[in-house]
């Protein structure tokens, strides 16, 4: 896994393995080994831990150290990175001064600053959404309850929770609504930070929802079903939807992992990336029709929007700059150290389609039918012959006799 984080139209950060690389110009010029590097592993190793945390630390030894998600503060001064080692680092974008480095208790999936840049909102694989102070450490960390009611010694303020992995977060322009997309096909829109008030669910996707983009009162989303859906997130109403995005020759769909809104010739468009295909879909927001399929040289590990029609993807072979207007794709010259790390970068976070392997219900009703037929037959014979009425023949069959039974 590798991540791109644009700071402005040119510069940005690239995260790969334990390092963050500051790149003065991610657009045309080569990044050089002299550019600033932040060693995230060294930073987190210096953070002291308590007993509960140590146990949690030890259990993560086998985990590849990498950045799982990152965010830029709204005033573009600070960067927050969430790591596979269950750490969050907040640092100053300009000079990599570490503001905070702290532990969280579960694998992060998405990180986002709230609109006043006071907190980072973090979702995790267990479906929790928690916020943490971004700019200063809490004065005192007391035992608290998770959103599941469990006690924990980790800092943070629980906001929301689902029984499903959270795959994307988005804030409304005024910062007062938080949208959470999950693996159970749902988008939940809560108040922020009073997330206990769920305003709406946007329901219509038939597979996981992995990406959202907000424009005024509207929310765009996509995911495992590869359709783009447009919602009024104030009401949860589905306004419009596209056909699944796919190449003409392609059988089946590949999940869309990232959508961006951008302006092209004064009109709103969407760029959609699958992290399994060498293609960018450019979609006209007016009718949600695909107007271009831009072929790529490599499969993206991560995609980022710079300015206007300019996007970049990071892949195992390099970083590429794409212009959705001219449809040009250029390799960005990248420093040797980063190239070396990229070669064996891990896959983006896997999101699996639901796998209901065995058809439980069908089997059950089949067994029930035969069993009740037998019982009926037994009843008839019993009535006819007036004997053999032990009635025990149904002690098994539907009973899972090996399992504990409770009414």
């Amino acid at each position, binding site marked *: 896994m590798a991540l791109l984080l644009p700071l402005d139209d040119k510069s940005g950060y690239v995260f790969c393995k334990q390092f963050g690389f500051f790149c003065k110009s991610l657009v045309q010029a080569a990044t050089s080994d002299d550019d600033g590097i932040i060693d995230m592993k060294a930073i987190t190793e210096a953070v002291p831990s308590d007993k509960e945390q140590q146990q949690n630390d030890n259990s993560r030894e086998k985990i590849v150290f990498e950045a799982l998600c990152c965010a830029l503060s709204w005033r573009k001064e600070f960067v927050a990175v969430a790591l596979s080692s269950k750490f969050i680092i907040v640092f100053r974008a300009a000079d990599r001064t570490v503001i905070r480095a702290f532990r969280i208790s579960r694998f992060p999936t998405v990180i986002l600053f709230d609109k006043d840049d006071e907190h980072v909102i973090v979702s995790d694989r267990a*479906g*929790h959404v928690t916020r943490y102070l971004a700019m200063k450490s809490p004065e005192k960390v007391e035992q608290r*309850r*998770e*959103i*599941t*009611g*469990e006690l924990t010694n980790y800092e943070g303020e*629980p906001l*929301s*929770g*689902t*029984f*499903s992995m959270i795959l994307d977060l988005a804030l409304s322009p005024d910062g*007062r609504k938080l949208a959470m997309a999950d693996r*159970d*096909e*749902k988008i*939940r829109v*809560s*108040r922020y930070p*009073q*997330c*206990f*008030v*769920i305003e*709406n*669910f946007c*329901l*219509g*996707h*038939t597979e996981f929802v992995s990406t959202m983009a907000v424009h005024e009162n509207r929310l765009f989303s996509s995911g495992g079903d590869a359709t783009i859906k447009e919602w009024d997130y104030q009401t*949860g109403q589905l306004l419009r939807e596209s056909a699944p995005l796919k190449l003409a020759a392609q059988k089946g769909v590949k999940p869309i992992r990232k959508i961006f809104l951008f302006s092209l010739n004064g009109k709103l468009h969407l760029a959609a990336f699958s992290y399994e295909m060498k293609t960018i879909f450019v979609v006209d927001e007016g009718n949600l029709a695909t107007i271009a399929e831009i072929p790529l040289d490599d499969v993206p590990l991560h995609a980022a929007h710079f300015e206007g029609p300019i996007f970049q993807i990071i892949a195992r072979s390099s970083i590429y700059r794409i212009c959705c207007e001219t449809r040009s794709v250029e390799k960005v010259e990248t420093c040797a150290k980063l190239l070396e790390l990229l070669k064996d970068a891990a896959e983006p976070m896997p999101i699996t389609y*639901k*796998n*209901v392997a*065995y*058809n*439980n*219900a069908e089997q*059950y009703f089949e067994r*029930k039918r035969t*069993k*009740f037929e037998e019982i009926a037959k037994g009843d008839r014979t019993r009535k006819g012959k007036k004997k053999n009425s032990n009635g025990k023949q*149904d002690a098994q069959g*539907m*009973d*899972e006799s090996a*399992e*504990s*039974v*409770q*009414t």
Partner: protein
Amino acid sequence: MTSETSENDVRPDLSAVQGLPQKRHYRQRAHANPHSDHDINYPVCPAKMDWTGLYGDYANGRKVEFVDVGCGYGGLLISLSPLYPESLMLGMEIRMKVSDFVIDKISALRRHSKENDKVDYFNVACLRSNAMKFLPNYFEKHQLSKMFFLFPDPHFKNRKHKWRIITPALLAEYAYCLRPGGLVYTITDVEDLHDWMVLHLNEHPLFERLTDEEEKNDKILPYVVNSTEEGQKAAREGRNKYPAIFRRLPDPDP
């Protein structure tokens, strides 16, 4: 039936009904993992749900109002059905065989009622589903007026507390489904679980407990205490039962 009857039995007398299913054919192990992907057919959204499949024509012009979460063998639904003939009630039960028992029982009751030219029990139905995941797929915002959590699985171990049916996370979803003024009924024979449910409902900004007086006068409470299989069992085995009722408060001003 007689062996299960206790002094406080509030359940209707069904002795005249033919073809009621026998529980022994539907037993299933006690716990289903609420996290796993069961093969449950849930609608994409409430508008896509065909309620006539569960209530027949009785669903026309009516919406589900009461939900019994983890209804087990359905004792509450069957008992409340005659009291609120105009309200649709739904039992949600994750265990397939258990829900199938309730479905078969309701069919037998409806058959019997039809033979007598009545529409009794057409207002109750049971659905196999995971209430911890899919409530918003079935119910619109503020649709429900009552939710029941009767003798829920206690999940004793600390590590399993997060599987409990009352948690701050799930309360937000229940509050979404319930209309302001709607009621949540909880009851358990496990004191620790009672404390847990009361703690989290009390702490949640959208719920407030009814006063003792209000709880005492609640018409449904006797059914909550005595109509379900677990309630009967606790009584037979002489265990205390701890009921509580909470009101869904209006959302605070934004």
